[in-house]
């Protein structure tokens, strides 16, 4: 294992950015999704449109925001309104191609918990922020990309609370619940990138990060993870790193 020329945060931001295709409408949250979407916009997807849930569309960010309600998201925006407009006209109308999600727990079908740990949500052991827009993005984006810290306790067989529905119990269960489109496409973690089988919608390992192995990722996962197709995660290019460091986050707000 050699010392990488990039940090784990940079690798994850680049992997997440590559999930965005040019011209797509992207619903980006605070932190890594902002790094990823600003990078995508300046690298391979100049026509992607960034939507922030507090009320803006098509921002041309000059400075990395600390929140989706940051005054910085107004920069160059083509439209500013409120949450209702963004959630309705954007997400619910099916106009958002990709949304980013994160959470404290992720299960094998990409269901996410960002609400509370503990069997009884009325008396949680650990309480988090709650859904925010996550449940809505999970229900209504055309596809989602999940970003998570990869530890065994954070990747359980079932999450304690489904804040953000993924493929639910797999198969066609998501559609049976009344969700007409969407579902998680990728999970970018601190250890690798996971995707979902088209039929069962079970998570499988698509790539492990440089310096790791597929079994090492499986060992940190609380459910059986198919490793058959796993390759090494492609590393960031010099240009991607330059954009991330010099253009997207010269202040080091999120980059480490």
């Amino acid at each position, binding site marked *: 294992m050699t010392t990488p020329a990039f940090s784990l945060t940079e690798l994850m931001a680049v992997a997440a950015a590559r999930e965005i295709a040019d011209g797509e409408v992207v619903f980006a949250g605070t932190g890594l999704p902002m790094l990823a979407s600003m990078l995508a916009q300046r690298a391979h997807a100049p026509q992607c449109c960034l939507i922030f849930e507090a009320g803006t569309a098509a921002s041309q960010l000059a400075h990395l925001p600390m929140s989706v*309600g940051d005054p910085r998201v107004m*920069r160059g925006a083509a439209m500013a309104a409120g949450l209702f407009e963004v959630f309705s006209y954007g997400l619910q109308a099916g106009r958002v191609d990709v949304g980013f999600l994160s959470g404290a727990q992720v299960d094998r079908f990409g269901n996410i918990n960002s609400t509370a740990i503990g069997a009884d949500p009325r008396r*949680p052991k650990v309480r988090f922020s709650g859904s925010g827009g996550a449940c809505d993005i*999970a229900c209504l984006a055309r596809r989602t990309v999940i970003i998570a810290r990869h530890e065994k306790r954070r990747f359980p067989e079932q999450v304690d609370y489904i804040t953000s529905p993924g493929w639910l119990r797999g198969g066609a269960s998501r559609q049976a619940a009344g969700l007409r489109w969407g579902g998680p496409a990728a999970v970018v973690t601190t250890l690798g990138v996971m995707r979902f089988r088209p039929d069962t919608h079970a998570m499988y390992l698509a790539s492990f990060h440089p310096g790791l192995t597929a079994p090492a990722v499986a060992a940190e996962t609380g459910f059986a993870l198919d490793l058959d197709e796993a390759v090494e995660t492609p590393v960031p290019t010099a240009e991607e790193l330059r954009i991330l460091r010099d253009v997207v986050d010269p202040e080091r707000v999120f980059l480490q």
Partner: protein
Amino acid sequence: MPDKLISLPAAAALIPDGASLSLGGFTTQRHPMALVYELIRRRRRDLYLFGHSPGGDWDMLIGAGCVKRVELAYEADEAFNTVGPRWRRAVERGQIEWEDYSNFAMVSRFTAGALGLPFMPIRSLLGSDVLAREALTPEQRAADPRTPAKKAAVIESPFNPGERLVLVPAIHTEFAVLHVQKASPQGTIRLEGQTFADVQQALCAEVVIVTAEEIVDDAELRREPERNPLPYFAVQHVCHVPWGAHPYAVFNYYDYDPRQLKLYHESAEDEAAYAAYLEQFISGVRDHAGYLAAVGGAARLEGLRADPAYGYRPDLKRRRLDP
């Protein structure tokens, strides 16, 4: 038209113990903090808060023991802290009653109230525990008529059998407090930047109190009625409160204060430090002028003032902060 200007203490005095209330803004911007501080100074108790993504406004009220019940989607300051420290503790210790929704569900609930509807349909929540599980018990719901009889209801579309919608119940609060850029003494207001759900929150409240960075002539605001999101008769009281959202941002006026937010979130992780924070900045000062002096006065505040070309402070240091 009648002049609706009152002082901030007079506005806070209107809100009694037990009141239901929503506060404008979103995580790090445009919360009516000066009014929040005044409620804490007045030791308000048993408030019932409705919100989508509040931040330190709620966290401070909860930590100061002012709050009995909340309905919400999110309580944190995003990159400044991914969970509100006092909110987290209050839930874990059973000191507060709450019900979880999503942001879209909560803004749809405010919207339903604003539209005069008993509910709004949404396509979200299906399959989630936000829909399947309730934190409030049926007894708790039944005991307070301000809490809807049900958390939500699922129906089929009469126009396309098999298509499911979630109906989320309208919110009607006794008060809404917004912090805005500009207001006239007559209650016409101007929001700049994102509007969040301020408009709907105001329209589903019985009494709307607006705190404003600037008081401007009504005729000036009427020159561009397209930019005024509320009918003036929806606003009952107007307070002139410059720096009224500190430490949060107000687009075109000032940026958030990263040092103050860091201090708050570090303090709020610890009982004694939190008590000291309240005493130093809120309870122990007389009024908002006292608060502004305590946080560093003009020297600190001028460093936050927005660059007009950006609406925020492009050179603001946000991570490597001076002590």
